[in-house]
């Protein structure tokens, strides 16, 4: 049985490698100083999808990403690794979305794609670590969900078997297609880019990117229509503007602060026998230890 798989992937600032210049003097995040990357667990999700494609010939893997124009990079990254196509959901009206508004927009795009068996996403995105979008998309589409997948063991006869990694153990569960799966970082790493696919897709572009390009791609793109990356706006997916972006977000950021820890007055000393003996003596006398 061939499968139609949608992978949700997000472009995120690399919060794991936050340097000194990541925060501006006014305490806000200097996004420009953070490199934009493919959200790590979304790569694990992509790999699960590609493995299913390998096992089920004729299957397709389609990426869906919501973000600014440059998030088209995510789709190309997916194509280089073996995905078949992708959609970029981009519109000013999406800006400022919390997870609820994000999942609404994504669910509308999935409704437009319409034909799918599986939606696979990462467990969480490292910019917010919320892990909410997957389950919320599932709820909005009226689908069931299996979270924290470490391995999709099998898809057969409309059923899916998944090994889940929980905080204190593992579970094997079975669900019915169509379904939403969220994938853990403990799942298999994503395969590297494939040189053949890089050759094939390196010029793949969205309409916006084509307009901004200095080269005229008209001929290339009419000869190779698969290089056209689809871009969708709020109107394209028939979403209600009120439910998108800031206006569709029930949660608001009231305040953002730098983290400041209370510095203590500390006693500093060299590790001589005498100094350590004195410290231990003090800790025993005041009943901190012993």
């Amino acid at each position, binding site marked *: 049985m061939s499968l139609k798989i949608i992978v949700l992937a997000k472009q995120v*600032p690399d919060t794991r490698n*936050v340097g000194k210049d*990541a*925060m501006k003097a006014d*305490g806000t*995040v200097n996004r420009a100083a953070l490199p934009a990357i493919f959200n790590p667990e979304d790569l694990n999700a992509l790999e699960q999808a590609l493995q299913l494609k390998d096992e089920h010939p004729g299957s397709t893997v389609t990426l869906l990403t919501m973000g600014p124009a440059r998030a088209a990079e995510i789709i190309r990254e997916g194509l280089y690794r073996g995905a078949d196509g992708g959609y970029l959901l981009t519109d000013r009206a999406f800006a400022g979305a919390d*997870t*609820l508004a994000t*999942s609404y927009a994504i669910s509308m795009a999935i409704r437009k794609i319409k034909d799918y068996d599986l939606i696979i996403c990462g467990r969480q995105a490292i910019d917010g*670590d919320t*892990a909410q*979008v997957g*389950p919320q998309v*599932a*709820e909005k589409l009226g689908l*069931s*969900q299996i*979270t*924290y997948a470490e391995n999709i063991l099998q898809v057969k006869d409309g059923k899916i078997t998944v090994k889940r990694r*929980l905080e*204190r*153990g*593992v*579970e*094997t*569960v*079975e*669900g*019915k297609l169509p379904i939403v799966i969220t994938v853990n970082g403990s799942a298999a790493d994503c395969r590297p880019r494939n040189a053949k696919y890089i050759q094939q897709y390196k010029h793949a572009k969205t309409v916006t990117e084509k307009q901004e390009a200095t080269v005229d791609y008209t001929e290339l793109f009419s000869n190779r229509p698969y290089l056209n990356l689809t871009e969708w706006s709020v109107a394209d997916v028939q979403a209600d503007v009120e439910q998108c972006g800031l206006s569709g*977000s*029930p*949660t*608001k*950021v*009231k*305040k*953002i*602060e*730098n*983290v400041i*820890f*209370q*510095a*203590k007055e*500390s*006693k*500093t*000393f*060299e*590790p001589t026998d005498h*100094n*350590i*003996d004195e*410290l*231990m*003596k003090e800790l*025993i006398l005041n009943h*901190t*230890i*012993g």
Partner: protein
Amino acid sequence: MNNLFVYCEIEDGIVADVSLELLTKGRSLANTLGCKMEAVAIGHKLDSIGKQVFPYGVDVLHVFDDKRLAPYTSLPHTSILVKLFGEEKPQIALMGATSIGRDLGPRVSSALGSGLTADCTSLEIGDHEEKKANKVYKDLLYQIRPAFGGNIVATIINPDCRPQMATVREGVMKKEVVDANYKGEEKKHDISKFVSDADFVVSVIDRQMEKSKTNIKGSPIIVAGGYGVGSKENFQLLYDLAAVIGGEVGGSRAAVDAGYLEHERQIGQTGVTVRPKLYIACGISGQIQHIAGMQESSIIISVNNDPNAPINTIADYVITGSVEEVLPKMIKYYKQNTK
């Protein structure tokens, strides 16, 4: 009506610590708001849940007992909360930021169209003024959480939609009995009014849960090691010190990532939060995400060969030296000077 609700996580008939911690926090928030606190228990064989939760100040306990409701699966628990919250209209709903809470919370919040803030490190009640609309919101839940990898702290509010939902990680809040004889009311619900057969599409075929091997959260003394400890073998020094002075061993994420110790022992924003009497930080630099999980320790000792390690600023005692040199001396003194 408009009370505060806590979803209780239950494994083998025992309420999880994270839920008891939330009940403790919930009780104090409910006191500030002047409302009741209600708890929800969904699972099987729940006869003793009341006894476990009432001492934390639960006014009403909603019980949903059915064989099919344990172990946890997403849809039936979601259906129950969505329907119950639809009827009871809580102003606040709290759950643990656990495998279960992070699966359930977003689904419920999506169905109710309410916001959800994940992994809060602090919850407070306060007002909010919307200057443009010239509107003042009274008694909102301030959902305070780290953002951007822990480099900033954001206060999130949810002015218009209810319930205001938040998840909190285990160990972040303190658990405290308010009154061993607290009187609450238990309401047993008819499951058939809340779930349908279609909710049971996902079934658990196999389940292997491990009992937690450590109790670092409850230990009064913690010897914590970081990447600076250098190797798994060197960690033996920490275990030795912990054994003689009666503590548990924990560590930083860098130490866990390097394979020096188990993930269960990770302390910090993405690990457990601890507040022991004594915290001995060995070879830990003290990045924000680590400090977030141990800053409330009463006494902090830092053993680090870099005199400028950030952790030193929050330490009471700083020993500028290597772990290999300092720890054996501590062990030796203690062995010689106690019985």
